[in-house]
């Protein structure tokens, strides 16, 4: 374990990652201001992965997994946590070295800790996306998902983007040598992660599992789905994509409320997928000609 006295706090770790990726040409973006299940949903990843233009961005994305809520009683599981997301397009030839540099930047010595790239392919049927890559292990713990996107929204990625997704709490627990997420030092002035988020986990777990009004959620899902179609027809695919994100999260909440049967589940997932793919297709259609002009030889 890194020494607690010298290891970065939770917020310092984020600042170090920002400084590191900024120095390597990334735009430092802010979280997408909607409820999403993972950093991949940010338009800076999904939509920017489409088309031929170069793109480099890094950001923190609060991620919501309603079914993972444990009322603040589990040391590892949260319904709301943070992902640190890096997207490098096209994937650079030294992507692995860049990534390893970022681990050193937050205090992990690769000759003291065993860092390994273990096969783990990624697929999101919802986004019509898949890629090959690894989960990165540090002393047997998964700390990052490393993916070379091959398809997004059903389209071949041309070029391929490299995506890094760090689980910030997990990584911080490792770096700080802490066994309970709520014991993490959020800063170096005595504020713990629990002081910031424990009550939030308790209340949101209760709301996700017990309180949320399911009629409202179902109605919200239908509205988001309809609005997505309207936005696609109106030629504003980014707005359509936001509605797809909304539908996806409402579906997750309905799952947590336990009101979607096994048979219905596939149908709901299909509806979310149609929204997300439809948005990506509309985005592609809107820009394909322009891209083909600027990048001779490129085609969707």
């Amino acid at each position: 374990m890194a020494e607690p006295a010298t290891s970065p706090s939770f917020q310092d770790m984020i600042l170090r990652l920002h400084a590191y990726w900024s120095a390597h040409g990334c735009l430092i973006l802010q979280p997408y201001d909607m409820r999403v299940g993972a950093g991949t949903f940010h338009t800076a990843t999904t939509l920017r992965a489409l088309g031929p233009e170069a793109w480099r961005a890094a950001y923190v994305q609060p991620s919501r997994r309603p079914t993972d809520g444990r009322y603040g009683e589990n040391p590892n599981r949260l319904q709301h946590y943070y992902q640190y997301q890096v997207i490098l397009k096209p994937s650079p030839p030294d992507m692995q070295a860049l990534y390893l540099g970022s681990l050193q930047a937050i205090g992990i010595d690769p000759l003291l800790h065993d860092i390994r790239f273990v096969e783990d392919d990624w697929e999101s049927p919802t986004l019509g996306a898949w890629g090959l890559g690894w989960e990165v292990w540090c002393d047997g713990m998964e700390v990052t998902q490393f993916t070379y996107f091959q398809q997004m929204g059903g389209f071949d990625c041309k070029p391929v983007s490299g995506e890094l997704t760090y689980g910030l709490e997990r990584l911080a627990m490792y770096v700080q040598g802490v066994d309970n997420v709520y014991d993490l030092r959020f800063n170096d002035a005595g504020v713990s992660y629990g002081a910031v988020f424990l009550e939030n986990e308790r209340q949101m777990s209760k709301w996700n599992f017990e309180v949320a009004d399911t009629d409202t959620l179902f109605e919200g899902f239908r509205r988001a789905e309809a609005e997505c179609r309207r936005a696609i027809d109106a030629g504003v695919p980014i707005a359509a994509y936001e509605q797809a994100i909304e539908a996806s999260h409402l579906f997750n909440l309905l799952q947590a409320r336990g009101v979607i049967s096994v048979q219905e589940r596939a149908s709901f997932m299909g509806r979310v997928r149609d929204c997300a793919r439809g948005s990506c297709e509309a985005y592609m259609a809107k820009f394909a000609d322009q891209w083909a002009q600027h990048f001779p030889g490129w085609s969707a």
Partner: protein
Amino acid sequence: MSGDFLLELRSEEIPARMQAGARAELEKLFRAELRSRGVVPGAVTVWSTPRRLALIARDLPLVTDPVREEIKGPRTSAPAAALEGFLRKTGLTAAQLSERDGVWFAVKDIPGIAIGDVLRDVIVALVRGFSWPKSQRWGAASRHTDSLRWVRPLQGIVALLDGEVIGQGLGAQFDGIEPGRETFGHRFHHAGPIVIDGVDDYAPKLHAAHVIVDQATREAIIRDGAHRLAAEAGLELVADEALVIENAGLTEWPVPLLGRFDPAFLAVPPEVIQLTTRINQKYFIATEVARLSGAGHPHPTLPLEGEGFRGLRLANAFVCTANIAAHDGGAAIVAGNGKVLAARLADARFFWEQDQKTPLADHATKLARITFHDKLGSLADKVARVADLAEWLAQQGVVPGADPAQARLAAELCKADLVTDMVGEFPELQGIMGGYYARAEGLPAAVADAIRDHYQPAGPSDPVPAAPVSVALALADKLDTLRGFFAINEKPTGSKDPFALRRAALGAIRLITANALRLSVAEGDLLAFFAERLKVQQREAGVRHDLIDAVLAQGGEGDLVRLLARVKALQAFVGSEDGINLLAGYKRAANILKRESWEPQAQDYVPEPAETALAAALAAAAPRVDGALGDEDFTAAMAALAGLRAPIDAFFETVTVNDADANKRANRLDLLDRFRAAVHKVADFSRIEG
């Protein structure tokens, strides 16, 4: 004169599970590409690490053999247009053609090609034609559709023939990756490029840079190291060769390290600990050296995937394999891995304790929500059918000694563990967890064992349950599956067997034959399916498939034990001299009967002695065959048939069947027909080959 060739294809981490296949593909493609150019290499060696595939080929000829190629053209008498076409095709002039037997031939001499040029083409073919289970594109080149594909991004190529770089300039075809002589060592232990001179310094130079290129060496380091560490700790490693190979595929510089976990976790069943350490973390586990006394231990040890703990108590130790020689000797790595394992085991213990708060009978009620098959109802429906059948098998004495109530109870609970958290996390533990939970509830050992073992035998080398309740349940489960899917016409076709019915049938056959269970297993299509499986299964035991057909043709023998006894007696008989001759006589009779037709007539002549003798023999043999078959004494039935051999031989020697006298002919055909019928009481000899 010959040359030695080194090829290294360096990439980002190749999945461990793909490396053995990749080595085989590399050698196969290399040899095939050379062969198509007329080159046969001497020794070929292939190596892999997570970050490279390497090939060394020795004793390559420096120049390929010249080849003379002859192309047949039109006849000399053909119209001029045909000749012109041929000249255009071959690029020759008429003067360069030769004529033989009125046909034009073009002869082309292809001179030998320098091996360097051949290898250059081979490299292109290898990189472009390599087949990975899954491959990807990457980098700026992937803006275009025809960019390179590899399992993960390809980073460098070393290609040296006797120390000279092969394939210079190929970079344009490889998205900028230029073959050369530079490679890289261990990701963390060695910085900067390494310059390779040729085949001989490749492995030593990489070794100096903390990379062991030969996977067999890495495997030995892991295997021996893990055993040694366990022994030094006074323990015995649970050998796991698949794990050795996987860890060798994850490391370039393997360093096994032993750690400990909280012994309180040993309250969790050893199978669970082994699975979570092995599958999730790729760690080895160890047992205490002293044997258990057996009785009294809360968790009787069980075999898992054929390895088992051989009655030894699991130790609170694990061996992980690091990819570095750490500054601190691995202390931080062991501590970190120990923490991860503790979190996993804490999860497992949570499931173990949580699952036990609900009785299996309550878990089982949730099976009503799980569909077994659209047309066959829920898992609860299946369980109800299996319970009826298991109870019936016990009640009817099909499985001697099985208590019907216990068989029913075991059946009702046998699928309950599918809805437990533990089996949700580790589906491989289905059955095994049910057994543990049943025991923990205080259910009879026979019931718990039956739940545990009811999926057995699942594979051809799995042990076959022998305890009566276990046998009743295991058989009922498989028969229900088979009868159900056949009833809705979901039968395996060709290579498609989505419901694993072949495996279920084989399992049922092994349960029935190993335990000598007497029941009619099926009829119609399903019986035919059983027969097919039985033939495959019995082939290894040397039982002839045509004899199984011969017995089955007697009409739906669904009692597999009786069927096999009959087949075995038949096999012994048709291998004997009497049997061989009787079969010959049978075939002769059958051939005649097949050709002829006749009306039965009252005999109006004095039969010849051989006719009388055969009729008498038939009259004597028929009741003996019937009696023996009734007693299931198949050897005696065969012996009775053997008594027909001499009379049938004598009949064919001295009697003319197709006599001009219609009455004689009809009566003799009748006699042959009775002979055939007598033989058919035992088996349909027409199905016997040879």
